[in-house]
């Protein structure tokens, strides 16, 4: 009997035939205690304070109220950056998702028998995944200059790493029977993959890619902050000028776009499975 059980006594149930079953007391108090301690420690470390939150919160609502009513005359100037944002996310997602396919295959241990190769490709995918998209966009602006090209690249890199990781995990859970049948009738491993594994993973692959695209539209709107084009660019500018009513207009447009794309992608994904 552990220390915990001695404090919180287990309950005993006696069955009609005399057998005794012990039900241990719930661990909830212990878990609550641990969570409380962790919260206390993190408040200490991060210097979190409620008074700052309250006064800052006040300021947040001031800005929020300044955004209304949104400046509708600013609307015509939003279309171009909005299209840039959508183009960046669409193109970036597409490039990233396509590029991830060969890497996902190489990272799937049920398809590639060379352990070392699988390990190296997976390591590469993890490394790329740890690179924050903003940092990636920043680097891209140094290479391609300011503009949507940099944003597209950043999104492609993120999509590549995310879809690549998801896809190799999908490939590994696939039914290997048809693959074995293909090998038995004289196909190479690559032929067997295309004919038997690919049809199985295709719906999930498309679904994951679309899901990634949904998130990318939101990402793409932030990327402007580092000069990578799109809505973020003008948003940064308008916040700088304290033109909060224009910011409100941008946010509304972004909101509607994100909802529309999520709705569309959700509908498509539903039909895939």
């Amino acid at each position, binding site marked *: 009997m552990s220390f915990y059980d001695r404090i919180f006594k287990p309950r005993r149930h006696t069955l009609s035939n005399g057998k005794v079953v012990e039900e241990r007391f719930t661990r909830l108090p212990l878990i609550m205690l641990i969570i409380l301690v962790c919260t206390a420690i993190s408040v200490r470390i991060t210097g979190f304070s409620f008074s700052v939150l309250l006064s800052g919160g006040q300021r947040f609502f001031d800005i929020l109220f300044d955004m209304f009513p949104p400046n509708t005359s600013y609307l015509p100037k939003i279309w171009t950056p909005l299209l840039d944002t959508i183009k960046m996310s669409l193109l970036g997602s597409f490039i990233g998702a396509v590029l991830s396919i060969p890497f996902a295959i190489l990272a799937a241990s049920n398809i590639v028998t060379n352990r070392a190769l699988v390990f190296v490709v997976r390591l590469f995918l993890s490394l790329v995944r740890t690179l924050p998209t903003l940092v990636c966009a920043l680097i891209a602006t140094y290479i391609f200059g300011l503009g949507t090209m940099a944003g597209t690249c950043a999104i492609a890199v993120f999509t590549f790493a995310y879809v690549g990781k998801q896809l190799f995990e999908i490939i590994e859970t696939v039914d290997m*029977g048809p693959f*074995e049948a*293909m090998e*038995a*009738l*004289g196909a*190479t491993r690559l*032929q067997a993959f295309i*004919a038997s594994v690919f*049809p199985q993973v295709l719906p999930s692959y498309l679904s994951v890619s679309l899901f990634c695209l949904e998130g990318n539209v939101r990402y793409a709107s932030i990327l402007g902050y580092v000069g990578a084009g799109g809505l973020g660019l003008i948003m940064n500018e308008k916040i700088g000028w304290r033109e909060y009513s224009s910011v409100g207009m941008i946010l509304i447009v972004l909101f509607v776009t994100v909802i529309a794309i999520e709705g569309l992608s959700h509908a498509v994904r539903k039909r895939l499975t």
Partner: protein
Amino acid sequence: MIVFDHVSKVYPNGTVGLKDINLSIQDGEFVAIIGRSGAGKSTLLRSVNRMHDITEGTLTVEGVNVSTLKGKELRRFRRGIGMVFQSFNLVSRTTVIRNVLAARVPEMPFWRVLLGAFRKEDKITALESLDKVGILDKAYIRADQLSGGQQQRVALARTLAQNPKIILADEPVAALDPVTAKQVMEDFVRINKEMGISILLNIHHVELAIEYADRIIGIHAGQIVYDGPSKEVNQDVLDAIYKEAVPQGKQT
């Protein structure tokens, strides 16, 4: 012709799969292999098309020493041998005809495989194979919408589209109900008699084996304990095949 000459197989973990197998199967024979679970039936079958390597002896198929094959030669060799599995191993998300067309994949250029662009004559071959097993009308239905018996027929059609000289079948009717099992066994008999394809088939139903196969091979603990016409299988033979396995180490 398939010839096992003192063939043994020990798995990497030390399990004995086959022990000193001597066997010769003529073209056009219909052979059923019976034995307890773990006796080595699958191992025997899978060494014929080198899905498993043997560790001792020589195995000759159509005059080729199987152990010497590798890479491209091995794949070309496998094209001449069909294989049917207990779990059908169809790609469930695609149509029946695409599953059958898979048999043509090894002969196609890479871009055609990638785009799924099959040639007309391949499609005709596939449809004819489906016709031979009596499910031509199901050609454009998704494979997972068929019953087990129909799926096994698709697998059989896929094998026929390979135009094989030998068909290996690993418990092809184990997942089917008794009536469907008989129908599929009759398909095998027809393919064997009409097309002259040799058939090697693992099976747990002794009655089905005796009814449909010409020759029975009984395996016990990796060794052949009976090899003869199915008509001569009697209770003594079955007792020898299905007796308790002697624990390893006590064997003399």
